[in-house]
């Protein structure tokens, strides 16, 4: 059975995969697919900790998976005379290369372009007349995919193929953190970009290909922060309400608004992780910001956010965010264990946020 577990930030997603590997019976042959290099390294070391030297579980990156199990064994069935010699991460094919041309997918040294890899893999699968799947089904019984929210474009077509196989596909992810699926040249499934990929999964569920469960307990953020994160998204998306299981306390906790002239003092007082929407914004404050993309995956005590226009609107009247903005601020908010502060002019409305006062200088 294929399943998608939608887990809130701080729900220990990776731990879930590690435990599933540990508890699998020894007849299962498991492939764990990581979407980023960092998560691949983490999964490898954590699985090695619970299953030392076990040949039962293998961890592969998403690209390595497509190259090794789709493209390499059967490429000549799609493009006779061609053989895979490597991977071209940076390069792009000539614009004129059409879908039927090998040049669209392979550089002159027979290395597969990263930007068209999923599409190539899907084409090879079709040309193989079932061989790709039959081979995979003999090698593995289960596939776990971490960070499922980052799968988009042609990669979703690969998922469809896997769903229809004998393999049990287990996806773990959080659509609210979908920031990465930005292959500008991959227009496949474009209505399902970013957080809308949830719609795609819901459609698969409606067709009986997949079962969706939600894991709504955060072990990181306080309930106040969890509630804020829930309100960022439109209720019609039907995400389960987040429950905080955090038992940690901190003298500085809750939601704060910091007026522009106090930013430096706030940073001085609480050392928050300061996050802006993109590079260049907020330079005038003279503090160090990181972007949402970089902040992803981190856990800190305090977060300081530089709002965008849409986020200010949300603060004012609760209008849910959409698209990349929603994901970005969801990631931003859920980094924090104890407090979330926003930089906001005193003239603007944000009822739930307590104005932060700089400690009075005793001198």
């Amino acid at each position: 059975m294929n399943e998608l577990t939608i887990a809130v930030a701080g729900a220990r997603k990776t731990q879930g995969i590690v435990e599933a590997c540990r508890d699998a019976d020894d007849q299962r042959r498991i492939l764990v697919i990581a979407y980023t290099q960092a998560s691949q390294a983490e999964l490898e070391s954590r699985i090695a900790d619970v299953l030392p030297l076990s040949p039962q579980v293998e961890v592969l990156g998403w690209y390595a998976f497509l190259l090794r199990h789709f493209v390499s064994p059967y490429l000549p069935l799609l493009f006779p005379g061609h053989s895979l010699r490597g991977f071209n991460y940076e390069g792009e094919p000539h614009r004129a290369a059409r879908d039927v041309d090998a040049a669209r997918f392979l550089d002159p040294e027979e290395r597969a372009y990263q930007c068209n890899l999923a599409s190539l893999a899907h084409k090879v699968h079709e040309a193989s007349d079932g061989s790709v799947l039959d081979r995979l089904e003999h090698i593995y019984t289960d596939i776990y995919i971490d960070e499922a929210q980052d799968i988009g474009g042609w990669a979703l077509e690969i998922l469809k193929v896997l769903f229809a196989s004998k393999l049990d596909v287990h996806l773990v992810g959080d659509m609210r953190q979908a920031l990465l699926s930005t292959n500008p040249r991959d227009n496949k499934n474009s209505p399902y970009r970013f957080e809308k990929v949830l719609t795609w999964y819901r459609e698969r569920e409606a067709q009986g290909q997949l079962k969706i469960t939600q894991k709504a307990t955060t072990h990181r953020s306080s309930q106040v922060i969890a509630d804020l994160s829930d309100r960022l998204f439109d209720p019609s998306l039907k995400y389960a309400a987040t429950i905080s299981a955090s038992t940690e306390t901190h003298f500085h906790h809750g939601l704060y608004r910091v007026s522009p002239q106090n930013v430096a003092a706030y940073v001085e007082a609480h050392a928050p992780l300061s996050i802006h929407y993109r590079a260049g914004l907020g330079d005038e404050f003279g503090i160090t910001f990181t972007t949402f993309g970089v902040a992803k995956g981190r856990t800190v005590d305090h977060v300081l956010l530089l709002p965008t226009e849409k986020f200010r609107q949300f603060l004012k009247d609760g209008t849910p965010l959409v698209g990349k903005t929603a994901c970005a601020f969801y990631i931003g908010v859920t980094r924090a264990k104890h407090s979330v502060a926003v930089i906001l002019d005193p003239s603007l409305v944000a009822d739930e946020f307590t104005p932060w006062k700089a400690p009075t200088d005793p001198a």
Partner: protein
Amino acid sequence: MIERIIIENYRKFRRLEIEPNSGMNILVGDNETGKSTVLEAINLALTGRINGRWAGDEKNPFWFHQPAVAEFFEKFGTKHQVGPPAIQIELYFTADTDDPDMHRLRGVINSRSEAGTKTDCPGVRLRIQPSDDFKSEFAEYMKDGPAGILPTEYYECLWTNFDGHSLSRRPKALGSAFIDSKTLRSSTGIDYHTRQILDAFLDDKERVKVAIEHRKSRHSLTLGVLADVSKKMGDDGVDLHDDALSLAMDQSSRAAWESDVVPQVSDIPFGMSGQGQQAAVKVALAMHRSSERARYVLIEEPETHQSHTSLKRLLVRIDALAGSEQQVFVSTHSSYVLNRLGLDSLLLLGSSGAVQLTDLTPDTVKYFQHLSGYDTLRLVLGRRLVLVEGPSDEMVFKRCFKDETGADTDDAGIDVVSMSGITFKRALELCALLDREVVALQDNDGSDVADIVGDPELAKHLSETRHMYVGDKSHGHTLEPQLIDANGVDRMREVLKLRTQDDPTTWMPNHKTEAALRILASDETIHFPDYIVQAVHILNE
């Protein structure tokens, strides 16, 4: 299980394609047809090694098929030039397996698929081909290099799966054992192949246990006796500047258990035991039930150095274990080995490829197993065969052939084989499957010629190239009366140099071989029965 073997430009073979049997395979051929080469090639593709060393490090110009090399050099620079020869050895395994490790080797990156026949199966491929990195050097070499010798330093060795991935070590699923006919003459250690066999014999747990205990025992030597010696060195002031000098057992990988543990036969180390024993030990280890890691067993000429009884025991063992677990390839010169292991497992190598006897009736296979002393290889290897009843028929036929054609049968490339109890029907069945040119000469023993030759079980094996001649019963029932009938009693007496009181009619049947010898050596003109003369003429056409 290996379903197909393709060898290209390797030693004897321009191209050889074999579809081996799932259990036993017996490689048979004339000298120099490449029996051992096939075993070597299979082992090379399975292990990437030759004599224990990486093929890539050992590249040798003489591995290449010499006619291909000659053609390349001859035509180079002409308008008919061809590319430099490249060696390719491919093993195609059955895709019908549940072993996930086999499916990891699966794909269509193989020469059959490249030629347009989609062949999606597990497999390994070893290629030795000109390296793209050295194209210009190769071109330079061709300008003034020693013609006829390939510059293998400009070649690369690629060892890949059918999924296109390079292999750096033997895949887990391809355990094999190579039992070569070379024997070790050394008081210590064992050779690479034997080590591999030994390694496959142990399961993972046993291997670890041996390794740990071996390390411990070395370490305890260091802590024990050697510590005392080291102390003495210190006391005697055998110091190196200010650092203390001591002795310890080597714990590096060179000192791993594999190099210290050797098989013993009746308390005699492997390297010191008899040549026959060594082969027997290797077979016993490789074909033990627990040797599941050795799924492919290659045995070179098991008859070498074996007495008849020990060979018999060895073959029983080989035969019992070949099958579902292990696929076995045996090369042999011995009819006995061939008969015992089953004629249906034969892979006959010739210049044009390999011939198999898969259509042989089980009945006939058993028949030859029981008569395992029979020299079946003469039937198998002979180009043009004359089958006769016994040794006297053989000599008489040879004399007749010489008289009629002026040549010896040997010089004419004709092998005259005595049936020695094998029935013509069985022998002809074998010859028919091998498409041999045959003339059979049989006694009528009182039957009508038409009844003998017309027997449907026998007649179905006869053809344009396979004839049977039988003397008419009116001229006598066997060879001797037929000879007397052709020459007359008096003339026969002269030929045989008998005394006048001796009657050839009674003397000959009692002295068949002696009579035949005298005929063969006789200076007299001899008349031969028609059926023998006809046989000579059909051969001479």
